[in-house]
């Protein structure tokens, strides 16, 4: 029987959507193919914050790849912050140890809710984390943005990941309980084409141990560059571990106000400070996102306190891509099915961009 070949009009590749399936097990084939796992946690008392990204990158495009050269490269960066010392972020380079084995992920299958898994980053170096994580919630459906020529980005988020373990910012392991967010990303993109994004989440930190946050929200705003940019946005609202509303792009609005003083922005990884990285625009001090759908509405109001700028080299431009991880107080309020809610908590927001500068 001849092998099935999809007609060009149906072929996802032609639309820039990559191999079929939302998160296929297909290997990374080019330098622009990427697979990510993203972790962001806050200690339940709101004092400590952690952000970590593990990125598998496709093989560099060389004419004669050396035999035995691994096809994919794994990079991991870990950032920790202690609110008792505001503005002092502790950061690894892009080569933080992770493991042993594959890092914990809510998206590894099978993955029952009651089974905890281990996430260790940093090993014996500082900063380092060692967490036993478990899920309390369910992820959103996968989402996709496409842009440029044959470029795309898919992501899937899960709030309410909880855990116990230690953070080490350099003064010894600190035992704590955390609540946070986990995401997987798959795609093929060049940073200048991706343009910029504003992304973030907030979990109600007051839930009982082992239980899902009563309320949680995740938002995304992606603004690609190019001749025909297709900005997209969404706001997703979780209640008791289930995503209850997905406010789509037309139902959301984003606004910013003021600026975070540059003194509150740290550059990471440490080596980036030596490379003469050009400055970026000031981070907005306040961000509000509103969404409404029928009688349901929601507002997330974020007040930035401190930020760390992760400088990521761009494969296709001279300017680095920067992801600002911004930490601050957050108000999540709204109305769902006639129920009014208001949660004061801490949130983490990403303001990213900069590779297309100049």
């Amino acid at each position, binding site marked *: 029987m001849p092998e099935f070949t999809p007609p060009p009009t149906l072929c996802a590749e032609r639309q820039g959507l990559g191999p079929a399936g939302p998160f296929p097990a297909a290997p990374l084939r080019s330098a622009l193919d990427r697979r990510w796992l993203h972790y962001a946690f806050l200690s339940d008392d709101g004092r400590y914050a952690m952000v970590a990204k593990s990125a598998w990158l496709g093989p560099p495009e060389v004419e004669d790849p050396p035999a035995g050269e691994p096809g994919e490269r794994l990079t991991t960066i870990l950032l920790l912050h202690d609110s008792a010392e505001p503005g002092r972020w502790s950061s690894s380079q892009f080569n933080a140890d992770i493991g042993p084995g594959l890092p914990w992920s809510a998206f590894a299958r099978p993955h029952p809710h009651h089974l905890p898994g281990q996430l260790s980053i940093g090993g014996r170096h500082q900063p380092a984390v060692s967490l036993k994580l478990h899920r309390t919630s369910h992820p959103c459906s996968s989402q996709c943005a496409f842009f440029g020529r044959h470029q795309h980005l898919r992501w899937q988020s899960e709030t309410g990941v909880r855990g116990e373990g230690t953070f080490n910012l350099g003064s010894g392991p600190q035992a704590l309980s955390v609540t946070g967010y986990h995401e997987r990303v798959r795609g093929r993109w060049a940073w200048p084409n991706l343009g910029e994004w504003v992304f973030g989440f907030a979990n109600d930190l007051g839930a009982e141990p082992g239980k899902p946050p009563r309320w949680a929200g995740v938002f995304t705003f992606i603004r690609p560059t190019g001749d025909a940019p297709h900005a997209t946005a969404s706001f997703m609202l979780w209640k008791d571990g289930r995503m209850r509303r997905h406010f789509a792009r037309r139902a959301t609005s984003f*606004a910013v106000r003021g600026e975070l003083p540059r*003194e509150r922005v740290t550059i990471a990884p440490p080596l980036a400070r030596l490379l003469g990285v050009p*400055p970026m625009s000031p981070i907005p001090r306040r961000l509000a996102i*509103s969404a409404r759908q029928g009688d349901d509405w929601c507002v997330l109001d974020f007040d930035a306190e401190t930020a760390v700028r992760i400088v990521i080299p761009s494969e296709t431009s001279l300017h680095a891509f920067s992801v600002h991880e911004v930490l601050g107080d957050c108000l999540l309020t709204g109305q769902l099915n006639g129920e*009014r809610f208001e949660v004061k908590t801490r949130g983490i927001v990403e303001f990213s*961009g900069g590779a297309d500068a100049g």
Partner: protein
Amino acid sequence: MPAEPPLSAAALMVATIETLTRRAPAIVAAAGTELGTVRLVIHFGDGTRAALFCHGGLLVCEPTAESSAADVEAHFDDRSLLLLFDRSGLPAAESLEGSLDVRGTRLDVLAVWRTFRLLAQRASGLRAVQSLWLRYRMHAGIASATQTQPGSTDRRTTSTHWDLAHWPALDWLDQRHPAAQELIERGEPVLAPARSLWTGRKDASWQAAPSIFDNDLDESMAACKQLVVDEILRLVPNKRPRRDLYDLMRDYVQRPGKGLRPTLVIATCLALGGRIDDGVRAAAALEMFHNGFLVHDDIADESTHRRGLPTLHEAHGIGLAVNAGDAMHLFAVDMTLSNLATLGLARTLGLIHEILHMCRETVEGQAIELGWIRRNVVPRRDADYSLMSTKKTGWYTCISPCRIGAVAAGVTEPALLDRFNEAFRLIGIAFQIQDDILNLIGDTELYGKEALGDLLEGKRTVMMMHLFRSSPPEVVRRMTEINGTPRIGKPFAMAEEMLAAMHQAGSIAHGSALALELARKGVRRFERDLAFIPDNAGKGVLRQVANYVVTRAL
């Protein structure tokens, strides 16, 4: 203890313009340009009146009588008055019938409208202005202008708000949370109006920062000076010999001062994308060089007071003062080199190059003036003064601080660094002439040096040169005789005699006019030559410094 609130609307207006003149000269200069020759008289709802006009490049506001002549007359009741500075509302949308009336020719009214729009947009972001208006509002028992609108309470506190608002994220940030008063009480300036990133259809970049940056110059200069003083105190040893060396140095750097040089270094560094920390150590080195020069300069000039206190040699003797000045220069070199650890080799070499150039210009300028004094010569041309002043103070007061700040930010291209030269040369000379005038006619306590000290030491100022070239020969002979009298033993009456001759010859008015002309040229060159720097917070501070010379009260 909180300051007294303005007691009337006219007093509020006068206090606002005075505050802006002192703290945000760039705003006052821009508003004065918009107002031009129009004289505006404002009638307030409480029965008081104030006139607003531009005089000699300065925006002036003063209480006035009912019969005062005016090109434009405006009537504001309390509500529309507050809308001027209340950023939570849109004046055009919320102005009520009968609360605002403006009379005048079309062009004049438009000039007034532009002036107030500029003041409202740019001045209302300053904490000092916000505090002033808040105090008046509380004193007069007037609530926020927008809160008096019927129905506004419902709109803000219930979910009905979301039915009424089309895209609420902007509304939320602009009108709801946190309130302006809460920000002021927390000591934070009220933020500029919100801007939209996404409306559901239209998108905008979060990196598109607003284009107007204004700051409170007083606060900026005080903050920059404090940063630099802290850095110096950290780097100067606190050990023996304390009493005869290190205490002298530590006390001297803590004397009150404007903080102009640290502000220029740090603001330029910020403007070109650096961080404050990158510029602080270089600014500290510059300040130490400056202090060393002052100590030695005071000995050479036989000055008795500096920054409101006895000069170092008056207080501790010439020997210890010379030694402390030498030590300051030594530590300045040390501080320059200590940038190696933070800025790296290339930028530190650039700093050394800039500082060496600055020192060479300064000693050359000092040599020119001391030579004139030694030979009892007074050059006749302002150009001679300009050359000497540029070398003696222009470089190390204005030009070099900017260039050093730029190098600290990583800019080392000579063509870019040279863009600072002409603008800040002109501003520096204007600043020096104004300082010289203040020594003649200013308040001794504010100025910090002894009154007429420049005349006692025979300093060659623009006013003295004007006096010599515009006076009859017998006056010139007498003035030469006064200049030739050694400072020790020179009677104060001689200085007063020369001051009277300067008044007689119009030399002080000449100096004022020349300073203003140079300052205006400097501001024009600032805008033209530094157009390559995008508007940002650092450039905003530089612009305020540039305009400070234009609006400085003499």
